[in-house]
């Protein structure tokens, strides 16, 4: 077991805006996209995207279905090739399997009967890409225990993952993603299908990771549960993008310009509502088709 660590302090927004030192001894942003463009079957998802993410920064990635949010993550993970531009992690070009990135994909519920306990799932995050006799070292076990402790999932560690609720499974997934203490966390709609209480719990866990210095990219369907934590918003739509603080991006003028049609952004106290975004209207079908084709291509 790891020695008990003091509980992580409550995260303050914009912790440690200074850059991290990379392998070459020079200070770099955690993540740096320059002139990045991504095309899927002739359709441009985004182009000319410049984004530098500092340690501890929380960037929300918003946009309608099929606007390229998940593809952006896949490009950062080295699973998708950019049509133009560069992606760098701490100054080096990204490559597949980089252990400095923790990834939580869009949730697929693990079915009952899955022969895995919570801690087994977390352990795979640490040792799952290693070939050879499946024997976990002491350091591995300690890292797993630490990750489980960090997300307060001790009570879930010895339960079958298939028996856990959606929120509990998500907690285990986050423990799996942070088991190597990554510099960058990519979270793809981690709050979808969670109740309000579980949503708040997950956001709190993510904030604790930022306090440690990890940068966070967070795809969200609804920005409100994370609005308090978000430093900047990257909004993708119609092959274009907007980047800035929530106050800069989530306005009627900004989103109307982005969509090329009238979109109303309404603020009610500390909540934001976007009305009239042509998401479902005429874009949804195309997006759905894209997703199907993408899935087929991945399987082929």
């Amino acid at each position, binding site marked *: 077991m790891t020695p008990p660590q003091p509980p992580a302090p409550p995260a303050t927004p914009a912790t440690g805006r200074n850059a991290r030192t990379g392998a070459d001894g020079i200070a770099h942003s955690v993540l740096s996209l320059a002139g990045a463009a991504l095309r899927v079957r002739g359709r441009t998802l985004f182009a000319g995207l410049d984004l530098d993410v500092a340690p501890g920064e929380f960037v929300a990635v918003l946009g309608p279905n099929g606007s390229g949010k998940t593809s952006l993550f896949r490009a950062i*993970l080295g*699973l998708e090739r950019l049509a133009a531009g560069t992606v760098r992690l701490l100054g080096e070009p990204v490559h*597949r*399997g*980089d*252990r400095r*990135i923790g*990834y*939580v*994909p869009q949730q*697929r519920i*693990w079915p009952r*009967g*899955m*022969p*895995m*306990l919570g801690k*087994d*799932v977390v*352990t*795979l*995050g640490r*040792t*799952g*890409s*290693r*070939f*050879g*006799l*499946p024997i976990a070292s002491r350091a591995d076990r300690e890292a797993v225990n630490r990750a489980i402790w960090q997300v307060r999932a001790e009570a879930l560690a010895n339960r*079958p*993952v*298939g028996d856990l609720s959606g929120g509990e499974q998500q907690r285990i997934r986050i423990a*799996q*993603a942070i088991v190597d203490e990554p510099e960058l966390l990519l979270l793809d709609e981690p709050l979808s299908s969670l109740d309000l209480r579980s949503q708040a719990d997950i956001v709190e866990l993510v904030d604790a990771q930022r306090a440690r210095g990890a940068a966070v990219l967070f795809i969200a369907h609804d920005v409100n549960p994370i609005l308090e934590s978000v430093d900047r918003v990257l909004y993708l739509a119609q092959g274009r993008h907007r980047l800035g603080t929530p106050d800069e991006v989530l306005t009627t003028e900004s989103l109307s310009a982005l969509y090329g049609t009238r979109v109303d952004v309404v603020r009610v106290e500390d909540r934001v509502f976007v009305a009239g975004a042509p998401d479902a209207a005429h874009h949804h079908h195309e997006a759905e088709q894209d997703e199907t084709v993408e899935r087929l291509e991945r*399987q*082929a």
Partner: protein
Amino acid sequence: MDGVFDFSHYGDLLGLVANSIIACAVLGIVGGLIGVFVVQRDMAFAVHGISEMSFAGAAGALLVGVDVLLGAVVGSLVAAAVIGLLGARARDRNSIVGVLMPFGLGLGVLFLALYPGRSANKFGLLTGQVVAVGGGQLWVLVGVGAAVLAVLLAIWRPLAFDSLDPDVAAARGVPTRMLSLVFMLLLGVTVAVAVQIIGALLVLALLVTPAAAAVRVTHSAVLVPVLSMAFGLLSALGGILIAIGSTLPVSPFITTISFVIYLVCRDIGRTRDIRRFRRAAEAKALEPA
């Protein structure tokens, strides 16, 4: 039933069929371990399809007079490759297996009908004939089984990762597509060996039942393979040891033992679930409203 069992010269017999016993033990272990992934990746039906194609291959080999194990391996691998390449998704896979399986079985029946040799060999491919396999061939089976075991252990963690969550595994650098193909290859070879020992129709008793039983009593990623391997070994070894003292073939003993293990495990799991549910309900009742 008189004359079916006769354990009077059991010691002498054991010496004569030592090779068969070793082959059964190896298959029990390999089947139990690979079965964990068969269950986890939802491929029980695919295993059945592979075994029918393996049967066709073995029957074809018998007809043209080449090595039966070689024929079985070729049939298995063709089936495993087709299923692996065309059926990435479970639903596609099931229909492909459904198409492949009767074709393989029909082909095998055709080859056997054309085969002029003894009928015992014909029946053996479907229902098992471990005692009928010659000594040299048995060592080939053991060698193949050991090789499968070694590769399986070497790819265990990446394969488990891919079975749990292919998206994260790929992002983490696991070569998921290569692993899936290697797994199908291992499965094909294992099935071909199993066809020699318990027959094409009964392969599932050693490749699925032990793992399915283990999952009933535990979900630990460590205990499931250990138990499944133990159950496979117990079924295969128990089956051959009883069969030696009887005039009946080995297969019904293996299938019955593995089925009984499954029933016992199911009952243990059910009892525990009910107890856990009751405890949870009691705890809830005690909570202040």
